[in-house]
């Protein structure tokens, strides 16, 4: 059993190769219990491949992977019972009724109940938690996209997982459902110390939910840290906005404090509606990914040069 602060996810030098193509080059990261990690990256960066290897659904080419103390390539059912998986899209069990399926799937976890973690989650309570109580007796194919997504999340956590994988969990949810989902994630980490690894394209969501953000580009982790830490990495790039005599001004600078000081020295009280915005996660993300991609292009170009020479 894991206790708070213990490493539950340990990945070192993970490589994945399909034929002659390396999809993952050298992925290294770890997560401690109760942490929420978000994996960001452009499409095709290797996010899903990484998650599938950790889930034990895909064999890796090389590297060391430790998930809840076991190698996912050889994880047994005991190990499986401690994981929760929510994939990008499910269409299964369309003829089943919502509550019926939740009760059925939950029952597989009963033999894995422990002193500390009671399994499974009570179906009615869980339906209430994800806001599906009124749809409990509906056939699953009659659910809307957002409701289906909430059911997927419910099934993912019905076994009270110690480690939860969420692949784009909020895709298709309306803003309200999304907010409720965020509250649910906070509840899971606060009350059950669940460790969560999620992918998303919603940078706001990433910033709100994660303790740490990993950016994956071109099969490598190019950044690992909290949203704050990441934006400080490309710090200096701040945006200063103000109005003077009813006119709007915007200026991007690396020395925002100095710039504002000079601004006031020059114009004094004529300055109004002053705003200094440090790079947002979106700016940070775009900059880092662009750097990584141009870096890769340079390497390719150099290799070409060497070849032609």
């Amino acid at each position, binding site marked *: 059993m894991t206790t708070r602060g213990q490493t539950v996810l340990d990945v070192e030098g993970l490589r994945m190769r399909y034929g002659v193509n390396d999809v993952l080059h050298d992925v290294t990261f770890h997560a401690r219990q109760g942490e929420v990690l978000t994996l960001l990256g452009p499409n095709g960066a290797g996010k*899903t*491949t990484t*998650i*599938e290897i950790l*889930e034990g*659904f*895909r064999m890796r080419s090389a590297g060391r992977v430790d998930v809840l103390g076991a190698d996912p390539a050889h994880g047994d*059912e*005991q190990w*499986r*019972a401690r*994981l929760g*998986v929510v*994939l*990008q*899209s*499910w*269409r*299964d*069990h*369309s*003829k*089943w009724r919502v509550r*019926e399926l939740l009760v*059925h*799937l939950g*029952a*597989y*976890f*009963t*033999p*894995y109940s422990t002193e500390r973690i009671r399994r499974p989650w009570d179906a009615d309570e869980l339906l209430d938690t994800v806001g599906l109580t009124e749809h409990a007796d509906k056939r699953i194919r009659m659910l809307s996209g957002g409701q289906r997504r909430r059911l997927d999340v419910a*099934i993912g956590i019905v*076994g009270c997982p110690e480690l939860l994988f969420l*692949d784009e969990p909020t895709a298709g949810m309306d803003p309200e459902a999304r907010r409720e989902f965020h509250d649910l994630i906070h509840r899971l980490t606060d009350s059950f110390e669940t460790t969560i690894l999620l992918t998303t394209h919603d940078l706001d969501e990433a910033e709100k939910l994660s303790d740490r953000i990993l950016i994956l580009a071109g099969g490598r982790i190019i950044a690992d840290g909290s949203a704050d830490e990441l934006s400080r990495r490309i710090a200096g790039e701040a945006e200063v906005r103000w109005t003077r005599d009813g006119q709007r001004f915007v200026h991007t600078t690396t020395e925002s404090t100095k710039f504002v000081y000079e601004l006031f020295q020059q114009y004094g009280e004529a300055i109004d509606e002053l705003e200094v915005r440090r790079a947002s996660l979106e700016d940070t993300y775009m900059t880092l990914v662009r750097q990584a991609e141009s870096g890769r292009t340079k390497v390719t170009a150099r290799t070409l040069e060497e070849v032609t020479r």
Partner: protein
Amino acid sequence: MNGLNGTVFRLGWARGMIELRQSLTNAQDLWGHLFWPIGILVTLYFMRDTTLDVGGLQLGAMVLPSALGMSIAFNGLVGMGQLLAVEREDGTLLRAKATPGGMQGYLVGKVVTVAGGLLVSVAVLLIPGSFLVDGLAPGSVGAWLTLAWVLVLGLFATLPLGAAFGSLASSPRSLGWLMLPVMGMVAISGIFYPITSMPDWLQWVAQVFPIYWLGIGMRAALLPEAAVVVEIGESWRTLETVGVLGAWAVLGLVLAPILLRRMARRESGSSVAARREKAMLVVR
């Protein structure tokens, strides 16, 4: 897939019963269960005046038990294969894989669903059929016992093979080709006409496959002793039936776990997504 424990078996059973109930309460699936039995009943109705040259038996009396044998093959081979292929595509199998003991529970459930569906088909065929056709002798305990063991052995001979086919298919649509050889086997296996009226070499081919033996097993159960004259060697060939069906069962039980495991190993979120995209292209 080592060691089937009690909980998982019980859950698989529950799963099978839930899905059986679902398939009997929804129009599309119900039609699937009833289509063949009703087709055969209509055929029997039109055959009611045809009598065989040998034995003075009604043709319908021979066709009804043979058709029961055929339904075993349809349910076991095609039904099981189709379900696996469909549920691999829609992610049901992946869901099972993500659940502890889920794969075993899933398979137990499928066997229960398919076997239950078969029992429904058999009842739909046998009960009205016995009123349509004269000359059946299903009265004795022996007859029902024979019917029962042929049914069970027949499921063992076909279900695992069906699962093996299902796990080899890349999509439910590519499994359509399985229907052709099965129909071909039906045509040569003495289901709709006594096999003894076929050329010798075709008789030999038919006797390699399970459908002929499922048919003769059911005829042995339901026809009077006198009807044996239309069979090869004028015998119900019980030992041979057990032998050939048993051999197919062994083959299936050896192949199925290997192929199912291979299939399960390859399931992942992206493989399900890729199959779905392919399916969408076909639909479009």
